[in-house]
């Protein structure tokens, strides 16, 4: 039995976690990312870890190749084919604006680079899927010649009402395949079978935009892995928290936009189960951003609301994670009104925070942590990087002067604002959906998460903070644990007083079969777990909520039960239900999950390491206090330390505020009791 490997490529670091099922041993390491050649960083990580390709049993990858190409606009030249008359859809968008009172605001540019690459087909489906004008195959063939001449690298097809009737899109797709067999084609009913033509088009364009790039990436990484002796199929993490074969991912790249953060949520699910914590909020804070997620009753929340930037949606299934610009590298600045603000801009990896000594001059969150004694300049990344405290004096004095503060007070304010920003994001994923954060535990990971989690928990009144093992490479750990997951959707609206249950069940069976087929194609051999759900709304509403069908079959009882659950869900979210109102059943979803064999991640380490020392750490209200500083590996199970304290380890540092305690749980997690009562 070989190694189970997870590698997560982030903006700054590439993280590797290797699990040996034979011994139960887990190894991890961080190496620098190489944005110009991300695959090389992966090969480097394997070699640094002393892992030969032949030893690898399974390899799952979390990648930002797609996400970065969307953000940096380095995807391909894509053409957009749509129903004639609607060629300008990507340019017109939804006509609202992001910032209310800003005459300088610019509408976001679509990923399709020119209006001349937006071409109409003289066809039309009606709202009920009835054909109003057929597709003229000759016309489409003529368009193909235009596309070839224009030198496009991929094509996005989005015809009106294709989520109701897929016929025309399928026909256009087959003609494109005949005429332009070498061109990748993304088709809207496959990429995102949702209503609202702009959102569906934008998602489909994003998919096509990434096709050549992700295809090349997967091909070259496969080759590099083969070169080091790794001959097996490997998988990529999707935004929905499931893994898919790399070859399949290269054909639906928009599914990978939240690949990295999805790993973190998958690991969260596992750790929460092991610790017996059903309700968990997560804080994944890295160098440039903080991701916040939620687990309710042990289950992740899923959504389809993702925006490449404001106004450019990519509506694919993803774990509901809220990202904000609050990371270690987030820059502190003073706005025109003299108010101190932090982020969303980040100093990134280059030049990075001032204390990295790479020429950074702007005060960042990491700098504030260092100034206040919360980071050990000699033990950043386990001593692989020396932080330079002396560089901080002048920039802190300068910024502090602008807001009439002392430098330490400024540093404390920077942390406080960053923490408040993260607390707001946590409120968005909890309070707003009817969940009281005080009834949750906060699980912190990412390089900077454990340093801020206790303070964020205090702000929110959260009683318990959990810092899992391997917090610095937690997302990579999640990759080891990812199941294979396929979501399939069938869209047709029914009113609850007139449901064709036989048809619905037939369609459920049909898409279940397709989902299982796909699971097989992705290499899964076992018995899949199937979940069936219906997206519902009160007749008149335009936004739906997913309601799971308990027995999987929609008979009279199943429908009545689903309607009751929809009412309950609506009441939970919005404070009211409209009992007896007609409900629209909008779309039908099947999720097929291929469970990977469970990994035994039990904690077996014996305490080893140096005895605690003390270091002055600044806290608002008390000033500098002596804090206990201990290495995580020196803690024994059940051992408790009173704050103020810092628990250091290779990838992260955990801060325990005065008045709080931290204990090493039997599963190896650090558990901080904040003193807030639930």
């Amino acid at each position, binding site marked *: 039995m070989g190694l189970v490997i997870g590698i997560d490529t982030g903006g700054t670091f590439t993280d590797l976690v290797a699990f040996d099922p034979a011994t139960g041993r887990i190894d991890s390491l961080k190496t620098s990312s190489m944005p110009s050649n991300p695959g090389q960083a992966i090969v480097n990580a394997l070699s640094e870890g002393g892992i030969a390709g032949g030893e690898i049993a399974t390899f799952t990858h979390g990648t930002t190749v797609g996400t970065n190409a969307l953000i940096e606009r380095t995807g391909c030249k894509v053409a957009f084919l749509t129903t004639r008359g609607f060629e300008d859809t990507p340019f017109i968008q939804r*006509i609202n604006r992001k910032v*209310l009172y800003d005459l300088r605001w610019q509408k976001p540019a679509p990923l399709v680079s020119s209006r001349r690459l937006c071409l109409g087909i003289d066809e039309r489906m009606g709202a009920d899927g009835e054909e109003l004008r057929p597709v003229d195959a000759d016309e489409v063939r003529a368009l193909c010649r235009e596309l070839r001449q224009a030198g496009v690298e991929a094509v996005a097809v989005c015809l009106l009402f294709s989520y109701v009737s897929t016929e025309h899109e399928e026909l256009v797709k087959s003609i494109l395949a005949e005429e332009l067999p070498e061109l990748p084609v993304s088709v809207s009913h496959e990429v995102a079978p949702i209503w609202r033509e702009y959102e569906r088009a934008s998602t489909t364009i994003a998919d096509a935009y990434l096709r050549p790039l992700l295809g090349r990436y997967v091909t070259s990484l496969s080759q590099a892995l083969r070169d080091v002796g790794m001959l097996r199929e490997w998988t990529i993490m999707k935004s929905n928290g499931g893994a898919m074969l790399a070859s399949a991912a290269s054909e639906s790249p928009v599914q990978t936009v939240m690949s990295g953060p999805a790993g973190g949520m998958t690991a969260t699910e596992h750790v929460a189960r092991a610790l017996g914590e059903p309700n968990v909020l997560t804080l994944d804070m890295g160098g440039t951003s903080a991701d916040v997620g939620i687990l309710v009753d042990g289950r992740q929340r899923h959504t389809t609301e993702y925006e490449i930037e404001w106004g450019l949606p990519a509506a694919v299934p993803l774990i509901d994670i809220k990202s904000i610009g609050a990371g270690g590298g987030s820059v502190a600045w003073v706005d025109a009104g003299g108010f101190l603000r932090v982020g969303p801009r980040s100093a990134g990896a280059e030049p990075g925070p001032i204390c990295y000594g790479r020429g950074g001059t702007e005060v960042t969150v990491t700098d504030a942590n260092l100034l206040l004694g919360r980071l050990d300049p000699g033990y950043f990344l386990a001593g692989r990087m020396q932080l330079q405290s002396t560089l901080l004096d002048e920039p802190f004095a300068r910024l502090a002067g602008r807001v009439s503060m002392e430098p330490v007070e400024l540093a404390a304010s920077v942390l406080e604002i960053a923490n408040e920003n993260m607390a707001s994001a946590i409120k968005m994923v909890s309070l707003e959906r009817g969940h009281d954060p005080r009834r949750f535990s906060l699980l912190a990971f990412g390089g900077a998460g454990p340093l801020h989690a206790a303070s964020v928990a205090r702000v929110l009144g959260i009683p318990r903070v959990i810092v899992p093992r391997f917090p610095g490479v937690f997302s990579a750990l999640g990759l080891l644990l990812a199941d294979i997951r396929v979501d399939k959707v069938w869209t047709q609206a029914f009113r609850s007083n007139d449901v064709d249950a036989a048809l619905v069940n037939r369609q459920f069976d049909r898409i279940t079969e397709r989902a299982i087929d796909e699971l097989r194609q992705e290499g899964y051999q076992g018995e899949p777990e199937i979940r069936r759900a219906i997206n519902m709304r009160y007749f008149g509403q335009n936004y739906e909520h997913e309601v799971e069908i308990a027995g999987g079959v929609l008979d009279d009882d199943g429908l009545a039960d689903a309607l009751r659950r929809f009412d309950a869900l609506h009441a939970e979210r919005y404070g009211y239900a409209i009992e007896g109102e007609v409900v629209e059943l909008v779309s039908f979803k099947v999720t097929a999950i291929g469970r990977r064999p469970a990994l035994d991640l039990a904690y077996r380490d014996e305490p080893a390491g140096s005895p605690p020392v003390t270091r002055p750490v600044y806290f608002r209200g008390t000033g500098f206090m002596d804090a206990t500083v201990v290495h995580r590996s020196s803690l024994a199970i059940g051992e408790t330390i009173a704050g103020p304290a810092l628990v250091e380890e290779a990838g992260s540092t955990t801060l325990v505020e005065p008045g709080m305690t931290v204990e090493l749980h039997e599963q190896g997690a650090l558990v901080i009791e904040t003193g807030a009562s639930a």
Partner: protein
Amino acid sequence: MSGPRLDQVALTVVDNYLTSCCRDMGVTMMTTAYSPIFNESLDFSCVIFGPSGDLLAQAEFCPSQIGTIKFTVDWTIEELGLDAFEEGDVVLHNDPYRGSGHVPEHMLLKPVFWEGELIAFVANVAHMSEVGAKTPGGLSGDATEIYQEGLLLPPVKIKRRGEDVDDVWRIILSNHRTPRVTLGDFRAMMGSLDLAERRIHTLVADYGLEFFRAASAELMAIAERRMRAEIESIPDGTYTFTDAIEDDGISEGSYPMVLTLTIDQGSVIADFTGSAPQAVGPVNAIYAVTASAVYNAFLHLTDPTIPRNEGCYRPFTIIAPPGTIVNCAFPAPVAGGNTETSPRITDMIFGALQEAIPDRVAASCGGTSSPFLFGGIDPRTDEPYAHFHFEGVGWGGRRGLDGNNMVVTINGNCRNTPVEVFETRYPAFRIESYRLVTDSGGPGEFRGGLGGERIFTVTVPEVTVSALLNRMKTEPWGVLGGGEGAVGGLWVRRSGAGEWRTFVEEFGTMSPSKFSGVTLHAGDQVKILMPGGGGYGDPLARDRELVRRDVGEGFVSEGAARAVYGLTGELG
């Protein structure tokens, strides 16, 4: 824990909390409402007020509503008295002659109590798609009295101590053509107020009431200070500008609006003395709408990070003589004052200041919501339907930047209704096309944004339509040598006919753009043209590469590139 200090960190936190609370009220409205005008177009605003009616926070909603709701709330408090509010009450109000923007805009106001004491109000104002006017959807373009514009509601409680006041509900629901949708939308509004009430309770529980009060007062003081500082950066002086509303749906006449703007050491006086007497038709603005439009302009000209609360409005004095188009007297109709006259007033401020602050202004935007109303009986369900359809416009060029193509006019921040939602919800029309219009952006060194065109075909035996458009006769102006954007308008082509004609030519309406209650039949087509934005600066000074790119992209025709921009030689 001791009470939190009122430092700038705490103030930022409170401001962000209240602003995100307003945003979340909006999300609740969007996800739970029944009409596309709410759940797709987002034609509503959610705001928080202090206990005496001072605006504390808002988010990215419709500027005209936000500016006006101040007056609506003030009036409500004055008419009912603060003592009238009890915990769990919800007050409904839409009467323009009591401070509402126009009849379709319904305000719900809920008092928030803490330990028995009134500490805040939460409110939303939303454009209901059906209001029981003379024609479906309201905004009847040829109304001559406010009574024709829909059911008027003075401030009345629709909930008293948490219980529905059934009598009032029954009156409203029997006056609207689409009571089921009206009720669904009101529920969404009330749900969003409940959310805000809970959120304010959480804030006060966390920080204490005294802190909440002190922070509110300080945030308003900061906003006022910063607003005055921004106004001080505009050279003191008196500036003038004139524009006109082209017709009122009743007669041919044009209605000039005259602005004399005085900037004086951080204060602003916007004086509309000299503007035309009020119109017979529905293009009149009430005072609150005019004031709101002035605020809107200055909020656009100043730092977007200023906390958007009552303090922002303190530096302004607005003079609008009663009985004029900018401050009409009862019972003149007002529907278009809020949708059409409002953006024109806002743009006039930019026009007046173009020489004084050329870096900050923009040329005129298309300046119309292109309101197109329709209704009938849905043959699929036999249920009545009504819709207020509106469109985007091109925005004006700015120094260094072309205007945006197709964005909703400056008094709103609504979204369009997707074709797929529109045709699913409304059986009356099929949409044939929705596109940008070449050469509609005003020429300039920085070109105006493009307007658009939409063509509908009637797919039911009959449907009743009304309209209240503007800018069909007079072009959106440019600044500093920039040219005019293209006009918009409305055309009809009867089933089987070859030519587009105006509604005047086809149906004998008084105005081509403002009328009500015209019946169209299966196969008839309607075309809405949306105006472009004005240009900024001399088109001959435009970067030649940009002119060539515009031709390449079809934003500008080759003919116009040569004739207007003076492009010579190869297009490349």
